[in-house]
């Protein structure tokens, strides 16, 4: 009998949590729909593409503990392939994205296959070396347009009945892909597989002694991450009508690390926030040119030294500390 009040309390708490979640989802939906009428749509498209890229990268760096320095290879190559399919072959945007994303699956498997047996920094070095090969191909191959890249990629999609989409329409097009990608990542992280992945990140030896084929599970996680990174790049080429060497070069691999670290490693929303901050800096501080990169470097140092959990991670830790104290 004494248990009854407690149980009702818990039920009520669960109910209010459910309610609060619903309210948050509604608010986010309203904000996302209103955003392109308040903010420059191309800026939002940029943020969404990199937010998806950062979330996908977080799957490897945050949730698997694998340090990849080569993720630009997936993002950039998919941007080229999607741009090429849409521009030269005249495929609808959705199909171009599908083709490019499928290519990222293969590229991810190849990278993973070669690198996964290596630990820590060696893993990073191998991914970096392979990404440099991809960069070299992008520089040399005839269809990438060399220094100019692929410009004027058409934004003709099946959903727009192959009519060119406006910036604002493109925003919603990109948003749809972002949401699909984000939900897939959420599902992976909160799946039975996601729990095993966490255990491997925590203690690889122990996971192996429990019978988990650690290399294969890491390979799957890496390939999923590569696939979604590729999707981000493919969508970016459409939304931005542009695929260039910037997308595939080493600096891009570094930038996505920064986004994840600033926002919060192994958090769901951290990479989104991190991407928004870094992209906003590029936009609004662009007159300072090269100094923006110096600022990036400084932010990186501050993150590593002062708040390792990133913004979302620190807030989460603060909240759970307070909850702990009030108990």
């Amino acid at each position, binding site marked *: 009998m004494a248990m009854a009040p407690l149980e009702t309390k818990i039920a009520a708490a669960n109910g209010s949590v459910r309610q609060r979640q619903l309210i948050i989802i509604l608010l986010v939906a309203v904000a996302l729909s209103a955003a392109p009428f308040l903010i420059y749509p191309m800026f939002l498209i940029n943020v969404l593409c990199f937010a998806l890229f950062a979330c996908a990268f977080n799957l490897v760096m945050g949730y698997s503990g694998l340090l990849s320095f080569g993720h630009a290879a997936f993002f950039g190559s998919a941007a080229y392939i999607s741009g090429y399919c849409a521009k030269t072959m005249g495929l609808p945007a959705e199909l171009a994205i599908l083709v490019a994303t499928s290519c990222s699956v293969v590229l991810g498997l190849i990278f993973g296959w070669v690198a996964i047996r290596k630990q820590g920094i060696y893993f990073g070095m191998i991914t970096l070396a392979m990404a440099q090969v991809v960069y070299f191909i992008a520089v040399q191959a005839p269809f990438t347009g060399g220094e100019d890249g692929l410009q004027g990629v058409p934004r003709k999609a099946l959903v727009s009945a192959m009519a060119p989409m406006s910036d604002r329409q493109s925003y919603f097009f990109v948003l749809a892909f972002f949401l699909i990608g984000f939900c897939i990542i959420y599902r992976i992280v909160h799946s*039975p597989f996601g*729990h095993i992945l966490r255990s491997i990140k925590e203690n690889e030896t122990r996971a192996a002694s429990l019978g988990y084929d650690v290399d294969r599970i890491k390979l799957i996680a890496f390939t999923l991450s590569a696939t979604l990174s590729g999707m981000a790049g493919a969508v970016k080429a459409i939304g931005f009508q542009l695929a260039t060497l910037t997308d595939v070069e080493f600096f891009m691999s570094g930038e996505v690390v920064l986004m994840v670290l600033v926002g919060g490693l192994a958090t769901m929303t951290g990479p989104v926030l991190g991407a928004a901050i870094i992209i906003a800096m590029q936009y609004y501080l662009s007159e300072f040119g090269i100094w923006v990169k110096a600022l990036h470097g400084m932010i990186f140092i501050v993150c590593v030294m002062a708040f390792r959990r990133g913004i979302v991670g620190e807030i989460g830790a603060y909240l759970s500390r307070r909850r702990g104290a009030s108990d």
Partner: protein
Amino acid sequence: MDGWAIETSGLTKSFVGFVAVNNVNLRVRKGSIFALIGPNGAGKTTVFNLLTKFLPPTSGRIMINGQDVSALKPHAIARLGVSRSFQISSVFPQLTVHENVRVALQRKNRDDFNFWQTDRCLSVLDERVEELLAAVGLGDYARHQASDLPYGRKRALEIATTLALDPSILLLDEPMAGLGSEDIKGVSALIRSVAQGRTVVMVEHNLRVVAELCDWVAVLQRGQLLTEGSYADVSANPAVIEAYMGNSHA
């Protein structure tokens, strides 16, 4: 339950400059509790690492339940029903106590590549997790983070995780190390009860525990098998006494 759970022949492991395990022939009878003892640095943990393939042998052969396991990797050994604990307790520090055991049960649940379902489906494992935690006296700690547990309880957690796999062969590397006398009694009783229908190989420095639990004792010294037999025989062997005394004075 006839025959040998583990057989090694000519098992050897050399590291740069010296031989940690030297031509060891071990046979562990199915269903027995087998002790591997010896002074510090004798190579006991290395033998465990060889048996579970965490280290590749330099030479020699290992048979588990009559099967040659030379080509297998550690996870495949685990899948043969061999489950081990580690000398320095090995848990998943950032997971809760409950999750630590559950992740072991997930392997039997064939979850390895299940990345499309929600983790709510894991609740079917909760009951078994609670049973296992209760068996090692951790029932009240289920929601704690593993890293917050004191050392003795981490050991208990590791044993619960090891048992979760329902192994046919259990390898325990110093299960009593760091435990108080009360906990030692508890874990001894636990080992005795789980040994029903299983084979247990344990490395243990606490000779009272060995005397009480083990059917067979093998003594390792500087990588070599010194002698083996019942505890009474082995403990009366002058060479064994010498090995232990020599070491404790060194």
